């Protein structure tokens, strides 16, 4: 039986939401963002993109299923808190019957349930800027002082990316994945296609990458502002894109855009979900994909000589995909690996495979 204690989510604008605690009884700080996906809580909370963020689930019933061993997106999730309306009652026992509550306790992550998450989402929308929040046992002045005094790092990638290279061998094409906060979905898709993968830290130089003689390079997704990632990464991208096929995803897409002269803007309210219509310009078809966006490429800043836009989000007209005019390099803002989310853009990995094959000829 879970021990129920009052717990609060406080926001830097002074708002207090009271609920019941679950998971770890830790006090944490983070930006508060909301996700409108209908399922897949495990993939969401284990996505490293949520480093230093507290995630609010719009869908009220969360934790209905036990954690499943095949679908983690990382080993140690860097998320700072989970906020839900209705944490599922869970009376299962036995192996492979770990509840969300138990898992968050193990991972030292706090959760709050019985929150008016819809009101909270309205609050986040109304603020028009990212709001920091804290999960606390007492919502007093001290808690607010602590929240206001907290400085969240702007070096998110350095906190979550691997410091050391590691291999993920297979028998197919050789791919280097640059880890900016890699989610397992990307590795899963490459494994499915038998890629012989080496994951390198984001600090890897073009020389170190090319020394492995890869057929292609993937720039992974990850947390935070791409403009705060060390500038050597941009130089690396500029060099590598000339030599081998390149595929950028999420933060990797933003960095690819920056490396090619585009500008990045911060969204006033982050968008996390999988229900926006995204138009593929070349086919004029609409697809759906998981999105976790805090930053977007400025459409007007895209250098049409170097890049062209491949996907746009119909709702806000934002750039969702880019392709280089000269080099075999492309990128998407969304997650083509799903996990969780639709498979419709999954074929982008096949496209990347084709690209690597062609470059070999």
């Amino acid at each position: 039986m879970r021990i129920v204690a009052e717990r609060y989510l406080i926001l830097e604008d002074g708002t207090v939401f009271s609920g019941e605690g679950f998971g770890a009884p830790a006090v944490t700080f983070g930006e508060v963002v909301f996700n409108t996906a209908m399922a897949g809580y495990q993939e969401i909370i284990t996505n490293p993109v949520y480093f230093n963020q507290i995630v609010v689930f719009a869908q009220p019933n969360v934790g209905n299923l036990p954690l499943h061993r095949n679908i983690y997106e990382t080993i140690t999730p860097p998320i700072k808190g989970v906020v839900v309306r209705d944490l599922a009652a869970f009376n299962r026992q036995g192996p492979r019957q770990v509840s969300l509550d138990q898992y968050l306790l193990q991972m030292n992550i706090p959760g709050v349930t019985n929150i008016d998450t819809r009101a909270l989402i309205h609050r986040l929308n109304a603020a028009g800027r990212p709001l920091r929040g804290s999960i606390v046992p007492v919502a007093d002045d001290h808690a607010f002082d602590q929240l206001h005094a907290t400085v969240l790092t702007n070096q998110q990638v350095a906190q979550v990316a691997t410091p050391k290279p590691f291999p993920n061998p297979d028998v197919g094409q050789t791919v280097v994945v640059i880890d900016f906060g890699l989610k397992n979905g990307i590795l899963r898709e490459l494994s499915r296609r038998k890629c012989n993968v080496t994951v390198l830290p984001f600090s890897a130089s073009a020389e170190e990458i090319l020394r492995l003689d890869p057929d292609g390079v993937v720039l992974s997704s990850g947390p935070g502002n791409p403009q705060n990632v060390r500038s050597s990464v941009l130089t690396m991208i500029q060099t590598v894109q000339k030599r081998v096929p390149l595929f950028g995803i999420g933060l990797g897409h933003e960095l690819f855009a920056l490396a090619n002269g585009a500008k990045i803007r911060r969204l006033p309210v982050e968008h996390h979900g999988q229900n926006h219509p995204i138009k593929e310009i070349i086919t004029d078809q609409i697809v759906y994909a998981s999105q976790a966006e805090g930053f977007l490429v400025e459409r007007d800043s895209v250098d049409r000589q170097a890049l062209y836009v491949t996907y746009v989000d119909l709702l806000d007209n934002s750039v969702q995909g880019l392709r280089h005019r000269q080099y075999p390099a492309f990128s998407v803002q969304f997650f083509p690996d799903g996990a969780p989310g639709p498979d419709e853009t999954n074929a982008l990995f096949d496209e990347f495979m084709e690209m690597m094959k062609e470059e070999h000829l």
Partner: protein
Amino acid sequence: MTAEPVVLIIGAGADNLQHEGELNAALVKVAQALKKSGYQTHLIDNNPFNVAPELPAVIDHYSVAAPTVANLTRAIEQLQPAALLPTLGGRAALQVTERLATSGILNKYGVKIMGMPVATIRQVNNPSVLNQTLKQIGATTKKIAPVTTYADARDLVDEIGFPVVVRSVVPQAGSLRRIVHDYHELQLAVSTAIQHSPSHQAMVQQSLAGLKEIEVVVARDQSGMMMQLAMVEDLDPIGIHAGDSVAVLPTQTLLDRQIQDMRDVAFKITRKLRVVGINHVQFALNQLTGQFYVIKNSPYFDRLATFVEQATGYPVARVYGHLVAGKLLRDIRLDHGLAKHTAAMEPVLDRTAIRLPVFANDQLGVQNKELTTEKQSVGSVLGLGRSLLEALLKALGELHPDFYALADLGDEELDQLLIHPRPNRLLPVFEAIRRGYLTSELSELTKLDQYYLDQFKRLVELEKRLLQAPKDRAALTAAKYWGFSDRLIGQLWQCSVTELRALRQEWQIHRTFKEVDPSAGELAQHPGTYYATFEMENESQPVAKPRVLLLGAGPRTLGNGVANDYLLTRVAAEFKRQGYAVVVVENNPNSALLNRAVATKGYLEPRDYEWVAAIMALERPDYLVSLACPFAAELPLVKAGTTRALALPPASLTAPVAHEVRYQYNVFFDGHYTYPLGITRLLLTPAGIKTEFAPDLPAGLGQTLAQAGEAAVSPELAPGLYQVEGQLIDGQLAIQPIHQPAPWMLVFLSQVTGLDLAAVWVRLALQKFSGRLLTAAMQGQRRQATRLEALFPYAALHLNRSTRLSEMMGARLEIE
């Protein structure tokens, strides 16, 4: 006549066990969208309770005729329509359309079929052809094969596993089916089946009973763009008809991987069948192996589509109208407070929605009937909440009198109810949890996912807490937060709902209202439909004055069918015409009232005291309008005189049980004058019930009846519609006391006289009635329809029963 192309819409015909008004409600919205796209709408239908033709700017031309091949052929020859819409008439309309296509008439007049190509219609009408197509695209379906020997059967079973269903191959339908679980049973069943088959063949079929049922609704436009409108999970396993199952949206117990796999297959099928509009795909999912099977594909409008619409706030029917008219999802602009591009945005929920079937088995004298693959429920109710329990308890509100009725049941009897589920099967499940059954064990017995049982356990724990702490503020706060109704708490605390309302007010336990928006709060959208919960933020503000609060008719019941919904919809329309904002409270997802063109604002809530009182406190309506509101006098605002309660005249005479002929004089009385509406003859026989307008009468009878009727209207009577009945006994007309006719009769009279009797009633209530209106209208054209035949669910439920008016399920109109 303008040059706008005509679309011929095939109506659904009489309501039956499969249709409970949802097609008519959808028709209104679809037709409005078609008109917006530049079509003239022509409807062929013979359902007297179809309100679509009566609403302004919906149906341009209405032919009262059964939607048969002959009638449609005639209509096509006369109208030469540009298009035919076969997807609002259920399966029957698709069968009719296939025959029309085969006859060549569609080609002859260049009539385009909306929604799907003919080839698809042929496949949908022929399951084995459809199965072939599904196989081609790699979708797994149930394995089925003929065998002639036990050895063949054993080989097949080795491949597909037990259990299997074995039946003999016989030319006629109705061969015996046996479900077998082991080789011994198989041997026996196969040899029996082969013996009974003239061709010495047995069919061995994989049984999917016990698997989880998942339903997906996909929208597709003519450019091929697809989106998932919803994925619905049925609590009850395969083996219980989806319409008799408790349905929940969004799915609660699926991994994202499973969701995406089923989505991919649903998209593939929809693309392959080239459906334009919506497609409803049903799956059976084996949770242990992850394997899933396509069990049904319905590319037409049905019950699920309306549930999805009300649960998500996504305007499924309106979008559907635009899609079949050829618009693309990305180009559809939705008004009614919805954001740009919402049509192309997959709906997401920040609420849980439950659809609960409503049964009439007690009324029909059917006891102990197990739930099977054949549908038994007659209606359904929707519950929306911010947690699974809240949504479920709201839907279960209709069952509150029976909630604790199983307390005295023996353990063995209870086990039987758990293993062999009957209507309202959740009540024994709750009882089992009260008695300490482990949820894991119960999951085995009931085939309900343990997730649900664990949530039900929380419900039982809350009950215990309430029992242990009578009149305790914290217990009440918790119970309300998780969705307990005042009725349930009242049963546990032995107090009335008015007392509980007072306690809640004293303790500041306030209900708040949330808007049903399809983006889960991401976008600022205001579709104007709300539901209640107990949280911080309230989103509902009163609508502009003057306003009425209209209580919907609730789930369909036997007796009036959806006539109540028809009348209330016309009442709403008239109030709007009179300049009132109409606020509706309704929990039947299939109601025609749930349409922003009909009502200004909607609350998807139970129509019981506690909700009505709360909504009234917020809206402060000038009028409270209902068919009957037993607690009206107890409502604070009615007591205070702020709100006037108006109830449509109840049928003051209990429906006749005897089988006989009754002559009825129908008259409208405005308090001063009488307006005769004509004579009807009610024919009650064990085989059927019919009523006929302006029948041929024995000489002199009409005059005698009219005199008696006029005499029976005394000045003390309240204004309204009255009926004076007479029976011929030994050649003499025996006159019964004057009474007010039942709602279905009001509908019939409205149709045959062409008078909007609902509007007349509204005007009377508003004191805006003028006899001149009625006289003028009556001199106008009358409808040709002369007979209404009542229809009953007996055959569908395998009941051998003589007809009773109180068990009418639907009706059809006949024209001389």
